[in-house]
Structure formats: structure tokens, C-alpha cells
């Protein structure tokens, strides 16, 4: 059995192990790993996240058990001190000796500390390891006790320096970035994009000082400032140095491997050093006279070394390494690819800049306008993947290349071709290196006709998931090219879309789930189709969730929101957030009686948590007696209509937003829909009710109400779009009636209005056509269907507490009076919370 020793347990050293164990049969090689740090390999790229959660474990590439499970001998806190090439052994700091057949050096780099007078002063730190961060943090805490508004400087305005600035800001210090060059991120950005980034960062409270050469660091014992020139001094209480990296190549030097003149261990395209048994990967490897300080080339090097050791000789490093990067820097997208800066003789650039929105987009195009050579994106990098593919695959540019960064402005010209235009060799999923060709073949030849099936077969989308939209398109388009109709059936039990089922239920007047399954479905149903069909019944017949309880999602079945420990929360309706002191007292009394945790929700009402199943009818009986009704917080239905205080109190108010919001909330209460719906009403354009991030919103303006639809917060925030301007309340309500009814009838299950609009052919203009111009001739029908729902509303909790059969469902056991003894609460700020999950 041969032995492979890996020196260094950083990101690249870990990736070597991961790729190695994936390819090697257990027992054929012995793998030993040495790491100098006390921890197992962690994600250094996201080091600043350590401040947000303080959880070092979360940064780990893999837990310690992973190494054990894969039979990797891991020694952390153990530095390798010598390599003896003749005997093929290494020795460690604790003077142990190990034999190797292959040695892989992945010792990475250390921060470069420039020779400035005073760098040895107390309060000067580097930014590289979790330990560095902890030391910095401890010093910051000390400083904060004695200095008000302490300042910290970061020497270096590159990628890492800006990350460090964010870390320092999170520590509660005022950050000052000091850069020698006249721009930020000099290696990735041109002057203008750097300026855009600078303005954005400054608006976030990060001070930037460019073109500053530091003469000395001031202070008696500990740092108090930096001196750039005579009379040019920056007073700071702490300094973090992030001025680049130096390869940790001392092991290679001492054992006589061939070195670069400015450091780094020389490797060939097989990642071998001048000694055939020794490999070097990551930031110590000098390949093409370059050190690559990015993760992606490091990972590729790890893969090459693995294959070479296993005798797969054709795997070699590419001659040219793509240095394209995309990252989110302090919440700002920054990306550069190909040749980001380009001299004019090679081609021309198309540049879009908007400083007020912090946007900068530049693409470099060949003189003949046919090829994309590179580019820079700041502020919005959503087009990065497609641009990178165009560059890497030398795809022909569209006639108007400016559309690539500006989008199509009017007309039918779509800025990007479809994903199908990519060559088969284009790597679509870079995490798992899956090409477009592999995905399309998997659809064509192996019959994998969904993203789910593709990801199972090829592993595409299983890494970061960023390629999912592209894979979706590829699957859809390939199926289309095969002449297959892409059927949007809701699950294996119904070969129909939700819209088709809606029509079937309505036309055939089917009233229960079993009949529908018997008539047009197959099998016995599942947790996808049952609630979808329940929602259809509710929308057509306005039946409450009580009648067919077992086809409802759990929250609807028990008319409450299930929480962490299987208890429920209770939310009475407080239309538009208007509540009387008497009602507040009643809620307080009831919450206290049942020992419930109370919290104000984002929808301007009160949530009471921690009710056990058997307590729900008791609580509701009391709430109903106080005049409350259900708030449907548990349903895919109207939640709340949020309001600002409006012209009754507010000195800016243009109209009475509260009254309108109450009327609207009461109009739509209880209406079930494909997903939850939220509304908002603002009394003026200051928009305090945030109506534009709701499914429907009204904003009072001079001369009437503006109506917005299809906005949402959540995972993919989207602003609502204007449906109608300056209309009166009655018209505004009528439009929203029709829009909601149309959405309810046509949306797929669990699709919010914003996602529905995104997929709707014709978009907002089409909705206007349907709702305002009645292009389908269904407006009258939509009106009467909505009116039916409004007229037949009843409080389903009232129904539940008054009906002994429904009420009897609220017991934990069917054969005992006891309650669930598995539920445990702990105290939290004078209230309670569920005992945390282990």
C-alpha cells in the first residue's frame, strides 16, 4: 500500500483529500494529512462571516468525523519541519518521522507584512486565520472600553482588505481603508468601476484613502496613527494589514526544490515539482511564473495532482488559467472576467455607469464586434454566468452587443440567446463540472426529463445551485426539441396543471378530493396534490378547511401554525393593524392565562406561541367571545393588509389609508389562493406601509390611488408593478378583485404573485389587458366569482369551536386525556421558548 502525505490542511489541501477519496478504492492508498492550525480546514474566503455568527464550525469544509470515515489520518496543530528527499520521509515539530511515496505540499500562504517602521507595535494585526481574527477582536474589545468611537485602519484595498474592513466594522469600529494604488481592488477593477465601488462603500460607512504610501506607524508601544507624509496623518486605534500574500514555501526551499526568484515552488502542468515524488498545489505553486491566489485554480490543481498520482496522465493543468471571479463584497456584487482592462488597440469597450444606483458594467469586444474579450460588473452581476460562458466558448456576439449589459430596451430583441445556443462543451455547473452536452444527452438518451432527474444523474445543481435556472431552461428546451410537450402536471397522481384541475373541478362540479382522484387521477394522492386540490375547492366553493381536514396541510388542518416543538401559534385578525385598548387587554389576558409567548408580527398583528393542540379550541372560544375572528395566518390565503396611519393623523397623508386597508382586509379575508397573499395601503408616496412589496398595494396620490400588484419580500424580493394610476377606491378595488381571481385560477401551486407574473407570457401588460381592457371577456365573471367569495365568508374557528365533531379533533391522544410529555420549554426574556433542537 502506497502512502500519500499532504502537508497543509487549508481549503486546497482539503479539496485534494475530497477528490482523492472519491477516486480511490479504500485500502489501496494510505492518506496522511498534517495541518498547522488547531482546526480542521475551513472556508477562509468567508472568514468575515465568523463575526456574524461567531461559529467556527460553520466555516469548516468538513467535520473531523469526515476524515475518520474516509480513513484519513489527520494531525492538526502539527507542523511539518523537514523533508528528507533521499529517504522519502518527513519530520514534524514533535519530532515524529513519517514515510511517503508521494508528498503533496499545500501549505498556502501567509500575509505579507511590508517593512514599515512600527509594524511591530501593539494593535497591529494581520487577517488570515480564525486565530488572527480572535486576537483582533480581543484588542478591539479592549480599545472600545477606553476610546469612544474607535477607528481602525486596514492597510490594503484589495479583495481581502475590503473583507477585513467589513470585519472591523462588525467589531464596532470605524473602518478606514488605506491603499497605495490610486484605486480599490487594483487587480480586478478599472478606475471607473473602482470609483463606483468606492462611492457605494463610503455610503455604507467605510472610509477610503487612496494613493497613500505609509511612511511609519505612530505610537509609543501601541499604535495611535499612520503617517503618510509630513502633515498627512490618520489617527487610528488599531491597524489590520492586508497587503497581499507570500507563499509559505520554506519547506520547499530547505529541501532544495526549484524555487521562483520571488518565492513559490516551481511546478509543471502535472503539478510536480523538480522532485517527481513531490507535488505542490494552491498558493505555493508557481505555475507559468504566477502564483494564483484564487480558490478555483487551487481546486483544479488539487484535481490534477490526484489524477497524476493515480496514473491518469492526461489530466494536466490548462495552459491559461481563467482568473474570472464573482463575489459578493460587503453585500455588493463584484465580478470580472477574461481581460478586464483592455488596451484600445485590441478592441473597444462598452461601458454603462450609474453612480446613484452604484452600477457599473463594462464589456470588452473585439474590433470586428464578434467576440467578447472580458469585462467588469459592479453592483449587479446576475449576467456574469452567461457573459462568462460567451467569453469562454468564444460565442458570437449579438448584433447589438450593448444589450448584453443594458438588456433589451423595448422591442422583441432578447439580450441573451437561449442557453441552447451554448456549445456542448460549455461548463454549466462549475461546482460539479457538468457540461451543457452532458445535460442535454441525459435528457435525450436517458430520458431524464426534469431538473430533479438531471441532478440525480449528473450531480449538476447540487453544489451552489447557481446554475439551476440554466439547467431548467436546458431541460425544457431539449424536451421541446424532441417534440415533447412540457407537461406541468402537479404530481404523479394528476396529469394536469393546477389551472386545468381548477377548470375540471368547476365544470364537473366535483366537491371532494376522493371523487376527483377517482375521476381524473390515479393512485391515492400525496402531500403535494392534496393541499393543491383543497385550495381549489376553497377558491370555487369557499368551503373552510374543516370539511376535508385530512387533505389540508397541517396548519390548515388544525387552523393554527405548527412551530418548532409541535405546538401551535394563534393569530387573531387585526384588520389593517387597528386595535382598541380593550382588544389589546383581552389578548393580553388570554395569552397570560395560557402562558403563551407573544410577539408583534410583520403584518401588524399579534402572534401567540406555544399553545398545545388541546388548548387551541379553548383559546379560540375566549378570543371569539371578545369579538375576534381567525386571522388565517396558517393558510395559503389573505394574510394582512398593512397600513400606515394615513390622513386621519399623519400631516403628510393624502387619503385615509387605514379605513381603506380595513375595508380591503375584510373584503378578502378568508379567501384561499395558490400561495399566501399580502396587501398594503399607504396614505402617500412616502410609502410607510411598504405596499410596493406586497401582492397588491394601494398608494394615495394627488387625484386618487395608484394600484400596484405582484410584489413580495421573502427570499427573492421583488417590487410590485403599476397596474393603474390615479383611480378611485371603487375602481382600484375592482381591478384588484379581478387580478386576484385571475391569479387564483391560473397560478401553479405554491406560487406567489410575483413568480406567477414572471412566468406569465406578456407580463404586466397582459394582466392590464385582462383586468382593465377585458381582452378575454371574463371580467364580469371574475367580478361575480370574487363577490361570491366575499359574500360567503365565515370564520372557520367559530365553526370549529361550535361543532363538537370538529372540536374533538383537538386532542393529542385518541385513547388518553394526557398531553404530549415530550414538549419542553425554557425561559426567554420573561417569556418562554421551545427547548432548542439538538
Amino acid at each position, binding site marked *: 500500500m502506497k502512502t500519500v502525505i499532504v502537508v497543509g490542511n487549508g481549503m486546497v489541501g482539503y479539496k485534494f483529500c475530497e477528490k482523492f477519496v472519491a477516486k480511490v478504492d479504500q485500502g489501496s492508498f494510505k492518506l496522511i494529512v498534517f495541518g498547522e492550525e488547531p482546526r480542521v480546514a475551513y472556508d477562509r474566503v468567508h472568514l468575515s462571516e465568523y463575526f456574524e455568527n461567531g461559529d467556527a464550525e460553520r466555516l469548516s469544509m468538513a467535520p473531523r468525523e469526515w476524515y475518520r470515515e474516509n480513513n484519513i489520518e489527520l494531525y492538526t496543530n502539527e507542523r511539518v519541519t523537514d523533508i528528507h528527499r533521499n529517504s522519502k520521509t518527513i519530520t514534524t515539530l514533535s519530532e515524529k518521522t513519517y514515510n511517503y511515496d508521494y508528498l503533496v505540499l499545500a501549505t498556502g500562504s501567509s500575509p505579507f507584512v511590508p517593512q514599515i517602521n512600527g509594524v511591530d507595535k501593539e494593535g497591529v494585526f494581520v487577517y488570515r486565520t480564525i486565530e488572527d481574527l480572535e486576537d483582533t477582536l480581543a484588542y478591539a474589545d479592549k480599545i472600545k472600553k477606553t476610546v469612544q468611537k474607535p477607528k481602525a485602519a486596514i492597510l490594503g484595498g484589495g479583495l481581502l482588505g475590503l473583507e477585513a474592513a467589513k470585519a472591523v466594522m462588525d467589531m464596532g469600529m470605524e473602518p478606514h481603508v488605506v491603499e497605495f494604488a490610486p484605486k480599490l481592488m487594483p487587480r480586478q477593477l478599472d478606475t471607473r468601476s473602482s470609483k463606483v465601488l468606492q462611492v457605494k462603500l463610503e455610503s455604507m460607512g467605510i472610509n477610503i484613502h487612496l494613493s497613500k504610501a505609509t511612511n511609519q506607524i505612530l505610537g509609543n508601544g501601541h499604535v495611535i496613527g499612520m503617517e503618510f507624509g509630513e502633515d498627512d496623518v490618520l489617527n487610528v486605534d488599531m491597524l489590520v494589514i492586508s497587503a497581499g500574500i507570500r507563499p509559505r514555501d520554506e519547506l520547499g526551499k530547505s529541501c532544495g526544490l526549484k524555487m521562483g526568484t520571488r518565492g513559490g515552488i516551481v511546478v509543471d502542468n502535472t503539478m510536480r515539482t523538480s522532485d517527481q515524488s513531490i507535488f505542490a498545489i494552491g498558493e505555493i505553486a508557481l505555475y507559468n511564473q504566477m502564483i494564483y491566489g484564487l480558490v478555483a485554480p487551487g481546486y483544479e490543481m488539487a484535481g490534477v495532482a490526484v489524477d497524476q498520482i493515480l496514473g491518469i496522465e492526461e489530466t494536466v493543468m490548462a495552459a491559461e488559467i481563467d482568473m474570472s471571479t464573482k463575489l459578493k463584497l460587503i453585500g455588493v456584487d463584484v465580478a470580472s472576467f477574461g481581460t478586464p482592462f483592455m488596451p484600445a488597440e485590441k478592441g473597444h469597450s462598452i461601458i454603462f455607469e450609474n453612480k446613484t444606483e452604484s452600477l457599473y458594467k463594462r464589456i470588452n469586444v473585439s474590433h470586428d464586434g464578434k467576440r467578447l474579450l472580458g469585462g467588469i460588473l459592479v453592483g449587479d452581476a446576475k449576467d456574469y454566468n452567461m457573459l462568462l460562458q460567451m467569453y469562454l466558448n468564444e460565442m458570437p456576439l449579438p448584433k447589438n452587443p450593448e444589450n448584453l449589459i443594458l438588456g433589451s430596451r423595448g422591442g422583441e430583441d432578447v439580450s441573451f440567446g437561449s442557453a441552447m445556443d451554448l456549445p456542448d462543451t460549455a461548463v454549466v455547473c462549475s461546482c460539479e463540472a457538468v457540461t451543457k452536452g452532458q445535460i442535454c444527452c441525459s435528457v435525450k438518451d436517458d430520458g431524464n426529463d426534469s431538473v430533479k432527474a438531471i441532478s440525480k444523474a449528473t450531480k449538476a445543481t447540487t453544489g451552489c445551485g447557481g446554475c439551476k435556472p440554466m439547467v431548467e431552461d436546458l431541460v425544457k428546451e431539449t424536451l421541446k426539441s424532441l417534440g415533447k410537450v412540457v407537461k406541468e402536471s402537479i404530481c*404523479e*397522481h394528476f396529469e394536469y396543471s393546477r389551472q386545468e384541475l381548477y377548470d375540471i373541478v368547476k365544470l364537473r362540479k366535483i366537491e371532494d378530493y*376522493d371523487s376527483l*382522484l377517482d375521476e381524473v387521477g390515479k*393512485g*391515492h*394522492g*400525496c*402531500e403535494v*396534490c*392534496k*393541499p393543491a386540490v383543497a385550495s381549489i375547492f376553497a377558491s370555487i366553493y369557499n368551503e373552510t378547511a374543516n370539511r376535508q*381536514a*385530512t*387533505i389540508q*396541510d*397541517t396548519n390548515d*388542518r*388544525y387552523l393554527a401554525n*405548527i412551530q*418548532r*416543538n*409541535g405546538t401551535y401559534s394563534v393569530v387573531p385578525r387585526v384588520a389593517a393593524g387597528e386595535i382598541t385598548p380593550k382588544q389589546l387587554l383581552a389578548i393580553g389576558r388570554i395569552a397570560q392565562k395560557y402562558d403563551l409567548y407573544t410577539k408583534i408580527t410583520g403584518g401588524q398583528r399579534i402572534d401567540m406561541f406555544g399553545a398545545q393542540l388541546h388548548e387551541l379550541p379553548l383559546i379560540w372560544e375566549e378570543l371569539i367571545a371578545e369579538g375576534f375572528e381567525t386571522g388565517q395566518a396558517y393558510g395559503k390565503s389573505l394574510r394582512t393588509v398593512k397600513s400606515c396611519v394615513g390622513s386621519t393623523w399623519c400631516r403628510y397623508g393624502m387619503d385615509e389609508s387605514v379605513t381603506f386597508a380595513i375595508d380591503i382586509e375584510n373584503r378578502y379575508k378568508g379567501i384561499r389562493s395558490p400561495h399566501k397573499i399580502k396587501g398594503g395601503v399607504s396614505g402617500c408616496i412616502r410609502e410607510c406601509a411598504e405596499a410596493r412589496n406586497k401582492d397588491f398595494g394601494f398608494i394615495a396620490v394627488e387625484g386618487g390611488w395608484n394600484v400596484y400588484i405582484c410584489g413580495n419580500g421573502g427570499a427573492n424580493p421583488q417590487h410590485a408593478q403599476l397596474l393603474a394610476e390615479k383611480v378611485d377606491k371603487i375602481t382600484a378595488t375592482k381591478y384588484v378583485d379581478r387580478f386576484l381571481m385571475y391569479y387564483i385560477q391560473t397560478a401553479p401551486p405554491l406560487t406567489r404573485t410575483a413568480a406567477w407574473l414572471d412566468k406569465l407570457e406578456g407580463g404586466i401588460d397582459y394582466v392590464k389587458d385582462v383586468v382593465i381592457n377585458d381582452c378575454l371577456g371574463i371580467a364580469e365573471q371574475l367580478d361575480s366569482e370574487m363577490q361570491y367569495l366575499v359574500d360567503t365568508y365565515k370564520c372557520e374557528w367559530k365553526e370549529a369551536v361550535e361543532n363538537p365533531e370538529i372540536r374533538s*379533533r383537538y386532542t*393529542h*391522544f*385518541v*385513547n*388518553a386525556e*394526557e398531553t*404530549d410529555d*415530550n*414538549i419542553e420549554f425554557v425561559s426567554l426574556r420573561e417569556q418562554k421558548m421551545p427547548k432548542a*433542537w*439538538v
Partner: protein
Amino acid sequence: MISILNTYEAVEPEKVSLWFKAAPVEKFPKNGGACVKYKGMQIAVFNFTREGTWYACQNLCPHKMEMVLSRGMIGEDQGEPKVACPLHKNSFSLKTGKHLNGDLSSIATYPVKIEDDFVYIGFSE
């Protein structure tokens, strides 16, 4: 926490040594479940009316160790009867207890019989 999980062990029909008389049939909703207490244990019992069969399994979801499975929705995946946990939609086979959409440990299943409109759950002890 793990110790709770260990109190539930699947019982094969031929190993049943005790039939526990749980509750009358009408206490269990059609095509739905309810929870039965037996000694210190919580057993979820499902009345799969569409199939005309009954199933029983531990009420404890092995994902986050909450007693909730009896409140889950039942259904079928390619013919395999299953229950979906109401908390995170983890689905388990009602026949074998196997986790169908992931790698959680299997849940314990128990035989059920109906006699004189009463539901009995089989244990071996």
C-alpha cells in the same frame, strides 16, 4: 434525545406477542392519522381508507425528535404508502419505515388489526 428514539423498535407481524386495544375505529379520521398512547410510547395510527388498510408507526420524527407524525398527511409514492412529517415534509414509508426523500434513520412500524370496530396495535415484549 437519542434515547427516546431507541424506545421505538419495529415489530414484525409474526413477532407480535401482545395486541393493544387502542381505540374505536371512528376515532381515526378517514385517510388520516391520530396518536395512541401505549405505556410511555406515542404511536401514530393511520386509517388509509382509500387503500382499505391501517398502518402504525412511531409518532416521533427522527429529524428533529418531535412527536408529530400522526398529524402528517398520508399518501403514496409509486405505490408505496407514506406519511409526510408536518414540520419539514420528510416522508417515510408506512410499510418499511424507510425515509423516502433523504437519509434519515428509518422509523419503527407496528402491525395493526381491526376487530369488532376496535383498532389494535401489535407489540412484542
